[in-house]
């Protein structure tokens, strides 16, 4: 049994090697390999807990892997998203040269292997090993975009996430120092060192999940790399990994304290609001989605930060939901981009008619991310709210976090209204050649994910929570769903769905029985018919938010890049480097030059004294004679 544990790591990596060596059917091999990984992941999950230990390093450091409910669940999830996204890619990049495809798929697979390794790690050093190794594939995958801005975006991604990785390394080292071992053991953060260990662990996890202040690379990468990469890394796998670690920090490494909770909840609330405000203004579908990818992390961090069962389970559930709908949203937008050739939403419109499946999938996912019942996003947000309210016992500012979270949710809906309207509704795009649905391998992943949004929403308690998440999180995280002690205000999705369906049926009956006839007419504005060349975009309305007095100032700074934390940090590093270079390095160089000059000048002076002139030598002899006389006379 224990040998199986290695397979979710090794299968993708070997398949990647196979692709690079054979260079035939890269997409097919990748799809098969990820599917096999998914199956082995499922086998490991169903087999229950198992531990495998291999000798690795001296100093008592073993290569220890452990599959248990929680870690193997994440292996299943990551492999599942890999399968869907690779399926989507087979069509998206099939026109690229073979070299490109081989590289692309092998990066995908290696990344999957490393991430599975990080999930299964039972030793903090093994975790760090796989965790940091994914950095390479992040850089490589972002680099597969072939746009002018790609190198800069890749560098930004590498350095931002790399800083987070080194934070995690520091956290692991501090933890190692505190406990004397590298295994997951729980400590109480009571000394300065242990609080520092917690903070650096949390920063590492947050940077992978893409929360602020580690978020700036995501929007840049979104416009400069393939949409599948965005769906794969920031939207699904990185989020899985970051939230996985954050949860384990709270459950397995540190006993939560109020201060830790407030620290995380503040980051979460700030991330939700700041990112969603930025999302409102974006003109590019990918950038808009990427800001939502950041904003949604806020909910997970907020939920886990509460430290109570409802919040933590809600946060993890929200992470699962978010990966589902965010991946779906990216993939559907990718389909539209593939058809239209652009992701600028000003230039899109009317694709709902020609791409019905994509439209429907996108709509469901958009409603899910906005938290509309009975979809999955609603339920997990509800649980996060519940967690925040329960956290009132530890933090008096809980209502601030609640307001931020709910307000953020409203703004999410607003910005998705804009996106749905601009891409799929609105006036039809004039170019008819670009219409038509994409191929099945491109619409199917989106449709599967949209269906999951529905299922996980309606059967939220029965299916994901009671079957998978709550048992996986262990004994401390039991939520009495039915007893009603903790969850007095629990949302009952089945009943609510019943009501919603009943409402829709009622409406239909009224519509069919009654004499309601909708009037159809041509589009007009203010009584005037629209000229054929006049185009109304869905974007302009949202620009009014920029005119609100306080927001206006903030936005102007934000759009000018003033809250780009990466630029801040890079600027500081560069300035400090220049100061060090000039004040220390060049200074020492100047000193050595000075010594050289002094010795050359001294040499020149002495040389002048030996000019070969008899009179000078006589003078020296005389001087010496006088000195000797003086000494002797004394």
């Amino acid at each position, binding site marked *: 049994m224990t040998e199986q544990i290695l397979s979710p790591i090794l299968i993708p990596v070997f398949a990647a090697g196979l692709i690079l060596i054979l260079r035939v059917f890269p997409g097919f091999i990748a799809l098969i390999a990820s599917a096999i990984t998914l199956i082995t992941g499922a086998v490991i999950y169903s087999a229950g807990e198992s531990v495998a230990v291999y000798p690795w*390093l001296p100093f008592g450091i073993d290569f220890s892997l452990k599959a248990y409910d929680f870690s193997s669940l994440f292996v299943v999830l990551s492999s599942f998203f890999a399968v869907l996204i690779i399926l989507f890619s087979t069509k998206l990049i099939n026109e690229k040269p073979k070299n490109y495809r081989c590289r692309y798929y092998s990066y995908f697979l290696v990344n999957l292997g490393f991430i599975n390794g990080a999930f299964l790690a039972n030793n903090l050093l093994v975790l760090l090993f796989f965790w940091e190794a994914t950095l390479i594939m992040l850089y490589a995958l972002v*680099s597969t975009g072939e746009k002018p801005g*790609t190198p800069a975006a890749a560098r930004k991604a590498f350095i931002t996430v790399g800083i987070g990785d*080194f934070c995690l390394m520091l956290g692991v080292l501090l933890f190692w120092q505190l406990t004397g071992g590298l295994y997951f053991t729980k400590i109480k953060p009571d000394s300065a060192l242990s609080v520092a260990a917690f903070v650096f662990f949390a920063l590492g996890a947050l940077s992978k999940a893409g929360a602020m202040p580690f978020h700036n690379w995501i929007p840049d990468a979104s416009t400069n790399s393939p949409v599948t990469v965005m769906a794969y890394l920031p939207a699904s796998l990185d989020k899985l990994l970051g939230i996985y670690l954050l949860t384990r920090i709270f459950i397995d490494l540190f006993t939560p304290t109020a201060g830790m909770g407030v620290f995380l909840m503040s980051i979460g609330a700030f991330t939700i609001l700041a990112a969603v405000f930025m999302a409102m203004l974006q003109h590019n579908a990918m950038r808009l989605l990427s800001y939502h990818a950041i904003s949604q992390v806020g909910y997970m961090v907020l939920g886990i930060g509460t430290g109570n069962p409802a919040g933590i389970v809600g946060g993890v559930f929200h992470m699962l939901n978010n990966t589902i709908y965010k991946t779906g949203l990216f993939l559907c937008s990718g389909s539209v981009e593939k058809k239209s050739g652009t992701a600028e939403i000003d230039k899109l419109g009317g694709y709902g008619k020609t791409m019905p499946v994509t439209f429907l999938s996108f709509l469901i996912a958009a409603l899910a991310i906005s938290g509309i019942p009975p979809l999955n996003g609603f339920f997990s947000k509800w649980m996060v709210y519940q967690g925040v309210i329960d956290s009132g016992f530890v933090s008096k500012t809980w209502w601030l976090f609640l307001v931020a979270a709910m307000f953020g949710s409203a703004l999410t809906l607003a910005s998705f209204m804009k996106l749905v309207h601009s891409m799929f509704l609105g006036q039809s795009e004039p170019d008819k050649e670009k219409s038509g649905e994409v191929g099945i391998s491109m619409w199917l992943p989106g449709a599967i994910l949209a269906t999951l949004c529905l299922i996980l929403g309606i059967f939220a308690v029965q299916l994901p929570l009671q079957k998978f998440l709550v048992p996986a999180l262990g004994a401390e995280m039991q939520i009495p769903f039915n007893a009603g002690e903790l969850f007095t205000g629990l949302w009952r999705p089945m009943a609510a769905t019943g009501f919603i369906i009943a409402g829709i049926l009622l409406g239909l009956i009224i519509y069919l029985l009654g004499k309601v006839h909708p009037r159809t007419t041509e589009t007009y504005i203010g009584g005037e018919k629209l000229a054929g060349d006049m185009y109304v975009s869905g974007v302009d309305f949202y620009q009014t938010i920029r005119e609100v007095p306080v927001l206006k100032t903030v936005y102007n700074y934000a759009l000018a890049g003033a809250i780009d934390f990466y630029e801040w940090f890079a600027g500081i590093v560069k300035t400090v480097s*220049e100061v*060090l270079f000039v004040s*220390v*390095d060049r200074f*020492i160089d100047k000193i050595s030059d000075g010594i050289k000059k002094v010795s050359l000048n001294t040499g020149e002076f002495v040389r002048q004294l030996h000019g070969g002139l008899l009179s000078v030598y006589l003078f020296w002899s005389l001087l010496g004679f006088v000195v000797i006389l003086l000494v002797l006379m004394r």
Partner: protein
Amino acid sequence: MNQIENLLQLKFSADILADFMATVSTGVGMLIALYSTGYMKKQKHLLEFYFYLFLFIGAMVGLVYSANLILMYIFWEITAVCSWRLIGHYREEEHLLRADKAFIVTFFGSVIMLVGFGIIYRDFGTFNLAELKGQAVSTGALGLILCGILAKSAQLPLHIWLPDAGVAPTPVTALLHAAVLVKIGVYAFARLFVVTFNLPDLSREVIGFLSVASILVAGAAALVENDIKRILAYSTISQIGYVLLGLVMNGTIGIAGALFFILAHAFGKAGLFLCAGVVEHNMHTKDIRKLGGLIRSMPVTAVSFFVCALSIIGVPPMAGFLAKLFVIKSCFVNNEITLGVLGITGAVLTMFYLIRFFNEVFLGEPKTSVLVHEGSFVMVLVVLVLAILSVAAGLFPGGLIDLLGGVR
């Protein structure tokens, strides 16, 4: 008479440390010599070039096996002469001045070191390393010997010669940085103050801070510079700081980490220099701002460079990761939390300048219309081998690290 014989005894001895250093130096030296056959093709003074190249490697091997201080000093100065001639190989006015600078600075250090050896002889009456084992070295002798070590390993404040030595032919710079010259200093430190003498406690903090200063200042300088060889030279100064830091910390983990770092740095830095050499050989410029987009025309070189850079930064699964991790861990073991945190800061700095280098040179749009092609077969082969070794050493380090932890 007996005493003089004892003084100048031609005695060699082998142990794990010496075997390890000799293997790394000759192994990487061999790869560099192989690369030279491609790089130096059809150039003048080849006879002299190869003579000094192999004399250099041979002197290094002699140095690591030397069993007494005087013999060590003699080989030490032979390498200085070799480096002096090799740096000035192209015989241009400026190159000769830079070669002089390198020679004078390292010689300045080694002469002071010789005085330190003298004090050791006064104190213990012998130059024989085996007889000196376990003795407590006086602070004065330690300080004087340290001057020689810092000058040879190009550590602050005696590092200024190394960036200027970049005028040498690329195989020579690779040799200086990766295989022989700068490793001599840290080897001597390991030989004298880890294996032989007991280090005074106070010196741990002082030398530790000195090496962290090297890590940070040289890392900062590497971020500011634009010349490919100067960036890599500052990078060497910075990375050798980690080796020194690990050795100073003096625990099993620190020593194992530092010696493993010597290996990782030898592979990684040789790879980086030789890749840079391929670029320079083909593009005839050393300014990273004038380069770009080379990954398309020289993919193998680019990927090898990237792998070696990751190893130097300390990203798993490359060798540099474990080495750096253990070195920093050893700071924590000695409760030097500040040094450990500064060490990680240095790693972040490394990431900044090496990724900047890779981005500017290999990604983006080509900035010249020169028809670019991959380097010659043997050159590309060597850089590829170094990249593979960097990964392999990182994937299967267990036995070696165990061995290196027990050099004492």
